């Protein structure tokens, strides 16, 4: 049980700046998911917290204690690796007990803790097996068990679900969340999968090119993305972006496609004619006359829903997700873009513009 505080953590590999100053406050018992595309610096951030990598500058505090200069073993953390990193020549029991043994814990106490963790994770019957005799899901549990027995202040997860098949991933995802809630251990979870991020995190850190583009709850990130990158990264299919300019007075925008969109929540500051990017999620677009005509070029049936890709006036691409079956969709589809579903971004910087 502890808090984690990062203060302007920067990391540079030779000439490449990987992290441009990350600030983060994690509350006691909170599950933070760091999400981003590959190469955004999310794994580096986790490794700096673990102590496997040293920050070029900035501090890491666990439970108020400055651990920036400490070895991983002295930070009181536990980590679950992407490939689990179970020692292949040790049994499951020995794998889980190894860290405790090194810390000089008494065998009886080790036995008790491992048994307890094994029972919780339902791997009791596997304790005598070697890792290679286990399935992917079982290895995953053992890797978690190894973290749990340590009773650490902080759990670190480095894409632990990406080696599992899709079905098991969903199951383990729920299990990790349940376990984390039950133990109440502060956790940092790194993933590139937005669904994992949305479902697991109390809050998300969306990373982009070494910066935290947004730190907020999953629904906040989805509902009020801080910039166009976050908006396009979270949500599937991705948000549509349409070029527009600000109308005089700031209360509306003129789409390049020839439609004027009013801002129901209030006018945006800025000169008339300022370039804007308007975002709208595919699922918020409705079928109906009086809006735009969508020239359909691809229909993806999903059963009860249908994803339609096409272009609008001016050649901009638009994706629509409709709650109707796929059959009977013609070459041209009239769609309505509800005003209150729009997200307004600065056309040049990509930042969200609030009223």
């Amino acid at each position, binding site marked *: 049980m502890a808090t984690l505080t990062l203060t302007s953590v920067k990391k540079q590999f030779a000439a490449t700046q990987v992290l441009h100053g990350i600030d983060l406050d994690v509350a006691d018992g909170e599950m933070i998911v760091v999400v981003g595309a590959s190469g955004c610096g999310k794994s580096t951030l986790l490794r700096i917290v673990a102590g*496997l990598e040293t920050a070029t500058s900035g501090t890491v505090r666990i439970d108020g204690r400055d651990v920036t200069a400490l070895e*991983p073993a002295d930070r009181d953390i536990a980590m679950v690796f992407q490939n689990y*990193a179970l020692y292949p020549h040790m049994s499951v029991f020995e794998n889980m007990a190894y860290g405790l043994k090194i*810390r000089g814990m008494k065998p009886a106490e080790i036995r008790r803790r491992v048994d307890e963790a094994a029972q919780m994770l339902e791997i009791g019957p596997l304790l005598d097996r070697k890792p290679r005799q286990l399935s992917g899901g079982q290895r995953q549990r053992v890797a978690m068990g190894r973290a749990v027995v340590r009773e650490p202040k902080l759990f670190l997860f480095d894409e632990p679900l990406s080696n599992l098949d899709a079905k098991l991933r969903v199951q383990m995802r729920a299990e990790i969340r349940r376990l984390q809630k039950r133990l109440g251990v502060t956790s940092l979870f790194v993933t590139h999968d937005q669904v994992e991020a949305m479902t697991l995190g109390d809050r998300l850190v969306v990373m982009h090119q070494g910066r935290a583009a947004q730190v907020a709850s999953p629904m906040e990130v989805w509902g009020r993305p801080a910039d166009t990158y976050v908006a396009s990264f979270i949500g599937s299919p991705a948000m549509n972006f349409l070029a527009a300019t600000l109308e005089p007075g700031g209360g509306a925008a003129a789409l390049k496609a020839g439609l004027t969109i009013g801002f129901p929540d209030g006018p945006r500051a800025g000169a008339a004619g300022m370039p804007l990017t308007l975002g709208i999620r595919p699922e918020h677009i409705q079928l109906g006359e009086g809006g735009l005509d969508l020239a359909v070029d691809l229909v993806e049936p999903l059963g009860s829903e249908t994803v339609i890709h096409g272009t609008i006036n001016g050649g901009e691409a638009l994706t629509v997700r409709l709650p109707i079956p796929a059959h009977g969709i013609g070459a041209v589809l009239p769609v309505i873009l509800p005003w209150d579903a729009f997200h307004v971004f600065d056309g040049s910087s990509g930042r969200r513009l609030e009223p």
Partner: protein
Amino acid sequence: MSATMDLEADRLARATLRRNARNRWVAYISLSLGVLIFAFPIWITVVGSTHDVSTIGRGDVPLWFGGEAVANYVSAWLTGGEATRTTRSVPAWVMLWNSLNMAVLIAVGKIAISLLSAYAVVFFSFPGRMVAFWLIFITLMLPVEVRIIPTFEVMVNLGLINTMTGLVVPLIASATATLLFRQFFLTIPDEYVEAAKIDGAGPLRFFKDVVLPLSITNIAALFVILFIYGWNQYLWPLLIVTDRDLETVVVGMTKMIGNGDAQNEWNIIMATAVLAMLPPVAVVVFMQRWFVKGLTETEK
């Protein structure tokens, strides 16, 4: 229609059977030839060690066993035959004991040194790491024979002539084994190192608890190779050892062969040769399972 097709299929199946049988015979014959070529000299040696001294002395090469086996082997084991003006006799057990000591010390010493140096080169980053690695690597190009004079002089200056230390130490430093272990260590995933760091295992602990158990099959394979390498050493023992108490069997055997002043005791020499073959064979047979495993698979 179907009848002719069946017939055709039947014909093809029989042709395949015939071809398989023919292929099998070709394999057996070529294998037997190979076995014959390899085994014949050994057969001559084994048979020769069971005849009395005059049979081979006459120039006969017997192809079947004689009746002197026990006498020859006892004589070779206990006295090493009779010394003449140009030969000397050292009991086979002394020479075998020396060879065994030398081979085991070389194998163990090489493995220990290579393990540690490969561990340092792979798992630590320190200034001069690559320089150290390349220095080790370059010694591969200088076999013992090339540097034998300077090595001999160093051993003389250190007063290590006619000692087991002098015999073993120069043969221990080994670039090959270091290189082999380096390649193996490079295949150990970084995550193990990181997991161990988080578990709180220091470098030596990690070496003992993770690296060593993972290397065990490689160590076994290398032990077999190095034991035979050590056992077969000829030039260096010939130079450094003049004391008959430290004579190794490979060198000692050649010293049993005189320069023609007197009749060579070929029966005793062959008995010694057979005895000299046994320890390497034993090592290979005993460690074969590990050996093959170490060369072909890794425990991951």
